């Protein structure tokens, strides 16, 4: 554990975290663990591999770095763990206190408990206290009753509660309130009946005068007898209850009294002083959701005292209903039936108001406060006992193990040096020496200038940017394309970094300006650069375009340039691709080129209109080989022999595409007619297949010389190109008569022009001869 703690502390020093000091200082372990578990689950899902082994997690972080989102989470987790350890220490200390080994120390929980203790001068309303009150209540009530009865002169009271039943240590003092309530109850239940006839006695008045107002005179006796006899009739439903009442009325009455007090308490708790209702308070069907639990902490004697102010109303309004409806339950179930009996209690609004403002109301309020304190103390105790278990359970959980492993891996990677912050369109990530960053990624790297100190941890903000001091941005591992540029223009690196940052930030205006700067610097030397790249079989065309041919992204820069420049750039790049020796590399590049420089691309159309891309072979026409090879042989042989051309072989193939005859393929090599036929057939398929076949021919010892002027660029360029090659030049005009386009002929190199002219003349001569024959 110590080792783990040390690791966490070290880690927290090394890895900045999001501090929430004030917040967690008061947090309970439950709250901290709940957040740790929630956060940990998300971190596990988003920031860790499926395989939670140490090696796998380390490899994952090394390869992928740590995103800002994960950074926020892991630093928050680190902070929460730190808080948890503090709480754990406090709980352990508290636990020691309970075992008599208390080392007083200022601390959140300790001080809380101390505070509670100060308030807790009053008896705590614990479960034990409640039980104690419950246990002593009956004796107290009996004492109250006995004391009241002995001081109450009247009919048969000694029979109701013999002095022998008076509990020991029963000392009531001189509390008239107690006497008032008890005698009121006894009167209502028992003694009242005897006195109720006094009115009748007096009603007769003068001797010989008959009683006319009988019903007024006997109302008390009538009510009492009806109540009592109805209660007795109902009590007779149960033999035990009936026998108890009839055989031991005084003893049963004691039980009834206790139940009455208990029922009163329930009624006060759940009705009069209910703290939260469902429905209209105090009405039938309404439910008390939060009773005034403080009554459980008031001794019965205190409660009876508190009921003094409304005892008269209570007796008058409650006892009759209690006797008729509650006697059976009171005798059969005693105080345990109090809850049921209490539902019989109903009083007038005036009485309810009196009760609420009475002393018992104040007592209840105070009792509720005591109860709250008690609960607080109990909660403190629970924290001490169950909190540690909760914390230990979390510390040993598989989730925490994964987090810890991740934490350790990240710490070690940080320690290893080379950690940087990479900024990308998706946000920042912390990258390590082994983190793979693609050359094509829009990313810049920032060195971390400030060390991961404790200060950084404490003062760190939520974001990486706020937590760390970042150095001057650089490009990530430079691609060969960038390197090729920087070799020629080292000063352009800062511009490239600024451009990348502007791209990441989505600053269009800045991107445009910087692109122009880069273009102006790169354009003059890019052909040479790209040639070098392709020679090294570099295949990242996107990276080449981004760094060397930015106008071929057909963006703002391209729109600001003349279309001819764009087409020239396309041609230039395509020609370089086609000169790549390795067929697989070339094919790959060509494929990428066709995707980038697409005729159907709206972006490109917006820049160059409907101009066809250089690879477009859809309108190519192929001349019969036999005819042209002979013609070529005839016309070019002398040129070759004269040393003006390369060694000539009898097989030459020419493919002419484009209505203007601008695109010419010339092959000079030793292909057999059969090979040539295969080539011709292949030309119907696609350009790259054709190229492959040429390569095959070359492999067989044939020399294949391919030149591809790009269509649509005018004859001048073609002438320039062909003038450089001076090999075999066979062409086919697009028209049906297969005539040479005059425009082209004008710009042909002298040699070719002559050859072409001869061919033309020969053709013309043959046509004339044929015409004459026909005529």
């Amino acid at each position, binding site marked *: 554990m110590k080792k783990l703690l040390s690791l966490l502390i070290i880690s927290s020093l090394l890895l900045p975290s999001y501090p929430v000091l004030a917040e967690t200082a008061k947090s309970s372990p439950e709250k901290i663990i709940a957040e740790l578990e929630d956060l940990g689950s998300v971190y596990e899902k988003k920031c860790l591999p499926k395989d939670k082994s140490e090696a796998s997690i380390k490899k994952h972080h090394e390869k992928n770095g740590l995103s800002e989102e994960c950074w926020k989470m892991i630093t928050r987790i680190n902070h929460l763990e730190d808080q948890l350890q503090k709480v754990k220490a406090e709980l352990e200390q508290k636990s020691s206190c309970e075992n008599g080994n208390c080392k007083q120390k200022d601390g959140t929980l300790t001080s809380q408990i101390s505070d509670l203790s100060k308030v807790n001068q009053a008896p705590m309303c614990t479960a034990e206290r409640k039980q104690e009150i419950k246990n002593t209540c009956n004796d107290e009530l009996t004492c109250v009753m006995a004391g009241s009865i002995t001081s109450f002169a009247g009919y048969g009271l000694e029979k109701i509660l013999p002095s022998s039943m008076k509990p020991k240590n029963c000392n009531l003092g001189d509390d008239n309130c107690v006497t008032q309530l008890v005698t009121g109850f006894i009167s209502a239940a028992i003694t009242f009946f005897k006195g109720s006839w006094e009115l*009748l006695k007096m009603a007769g008045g003068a001797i010989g005068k*008959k009683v*006319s*107002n009988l019903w007024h005179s006997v109302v008390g*006796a009538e009510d009492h*007898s*009806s109540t009592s006899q109805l209660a007795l*009739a109902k009590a007779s439903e149960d033999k035990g209850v009936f026998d108890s009442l009839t055989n031991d009325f005084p003893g049963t009455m004691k039980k009834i009294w206790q139940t009455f007090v208990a029922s009163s308490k329930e009624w006060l708790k759940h009705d009069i002083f209910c703290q939260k209702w469902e429905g209209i308070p105090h009405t039938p069907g309404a439910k008390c959701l939060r009773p005034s639990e403080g009554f459980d902490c008031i001794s019965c004697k205190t409660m009876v005292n508190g009921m003094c102010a409304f005892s008269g109303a209570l007796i008058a309004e409650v006892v009759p209903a209690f006797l008729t*409806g509650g006697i059976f339950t009171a005798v059969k179930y005693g105080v345990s039936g109090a809850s049921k009996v209490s539902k019989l209690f109903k009083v007038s609004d005036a009485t309810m108001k009196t009760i609420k403002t009475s002393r018992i109301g104040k007592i209840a309020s105070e009792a509720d406060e005591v109860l709250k304190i008690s609960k607080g103390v109990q909660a403190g105790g629970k924290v001490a006992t169950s909190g540690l278990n909760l914390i230990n359970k979390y510390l040993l959980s598989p989730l925490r193990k994964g987090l810890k492993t991740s934490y350790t891996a990240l710490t070690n990677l940080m320690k290893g040096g080379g950690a940087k912050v990479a900024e990308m369109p998706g946000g920042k990530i912390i990258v390590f020496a082994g983190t793979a960053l693609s050359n094509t990624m829009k990313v810049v790297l920032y060195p971390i200038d400030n060390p991961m100190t404790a200060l950084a941890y404490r003062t760190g903000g939520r974001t990486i940017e706020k937590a760390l001091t970042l150095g001057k941005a650089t490009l990530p591992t430079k691609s060969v394309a960038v390197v090729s540029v920087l070799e020629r223009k080292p000063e352009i690196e800062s511009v490239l970094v600024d451009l990348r940052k502007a791209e990441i930030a989505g600053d269009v205006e800045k991107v445009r300006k910087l692109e122009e700067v880069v273009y102006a610097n790169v354009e003059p030397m890019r052909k040479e650069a790209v040639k070098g790249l392709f020679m090294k079989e570099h295949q990242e065309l996107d990276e080449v375009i981004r760094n060397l041919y930015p106008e071929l992204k057909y963006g703002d820069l391209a729109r600001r340039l003349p279309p001819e420049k764009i087409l020239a750039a396309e041609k230039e790049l395509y020609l370089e691709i086609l000169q790549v020796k390795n067929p697989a590399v070339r094919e790959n590049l060509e494929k990428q080129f066709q995707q980038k420089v697409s005729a159907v691309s709206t972006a490109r159309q917006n820049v160059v209109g409907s101009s066809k891309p250089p690879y477009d072979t859809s309108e190519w026409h192929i001349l019969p080989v036999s005819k042209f090879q002979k013609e070529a042989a005839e016309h070019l042989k002398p040129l070759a022999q004269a040393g003006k051309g390369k060694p000539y072989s009898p097989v030459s193939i020419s493919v002419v595409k484009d209505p203007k005859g601008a695109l010419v393929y010339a092959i000079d090599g030793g292909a057999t007619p059969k090979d040539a036929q295969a080539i011709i057939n292949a030309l119907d398929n696609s350009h790259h297949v054709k190229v492959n076949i040429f390569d095959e021919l070359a492999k067989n010892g044939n020399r294949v010389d391919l030149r591809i002027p790009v269509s649509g660029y005018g004859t001048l360029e073609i002438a320039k190109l062909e003038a450089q090659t001076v090999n075999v030049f066979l062409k086919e005009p697009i028209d049906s008569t297969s005539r040479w386009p005059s425009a082209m002929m004008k710009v042909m190199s002298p040699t070719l022009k002559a050859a072409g002219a001869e061919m033309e003349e020969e053709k013309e001569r043959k046509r004339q001869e044929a015409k004459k024959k026909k005529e």
Partner: protein
Amino acid sequence: MWRLSFLLFLSVSVQAKTLILDKIYIEEKEEWKLSKDLFGMPYVYFTPELNGQRSNISFTDTGAEVELDVKSIAQTQNVYQDNKKKWAQKVGAIPESFLPYEVSTNKFGHKIHRIGFNFQHEGKSYSESSFYIECRGKILFSKSMRLKTNEAHDNEFRSLLHTLDCGGV
């Protein structure tokens, strides 16, 4: 002699036993139970259980030595009814009907004023009758309480009251 003895025996055996409740004499009923001092009532006599309950009748010497004016009592019986309604409300009972005031004379010539009230309580119907008995210058009070269905007990109560006597001149 033998014949005389037989007649005396016969006389004693057919004569019902009498219960003396202080100065109140009532016929003793078999299997009934007499209890004293319940809820302040000196005597309560319980019938055997019928339909789940024992009916009961109380006997009290009110101590009042008055005569009752039948006419005015009859005329003001609505007061009795109003009081009963109030009581019913207090104990959660529902009034059903009232037995009209009536006056009769029992076996010993004592005037018995009777009035009654029918009500429901906790789903059961009850019938109570109050008897004010003018017995040798004193007012005795008796009240019967029974389930409405235990009408049979009413005859027993009438029988008790018909044979009720009291000490004194």
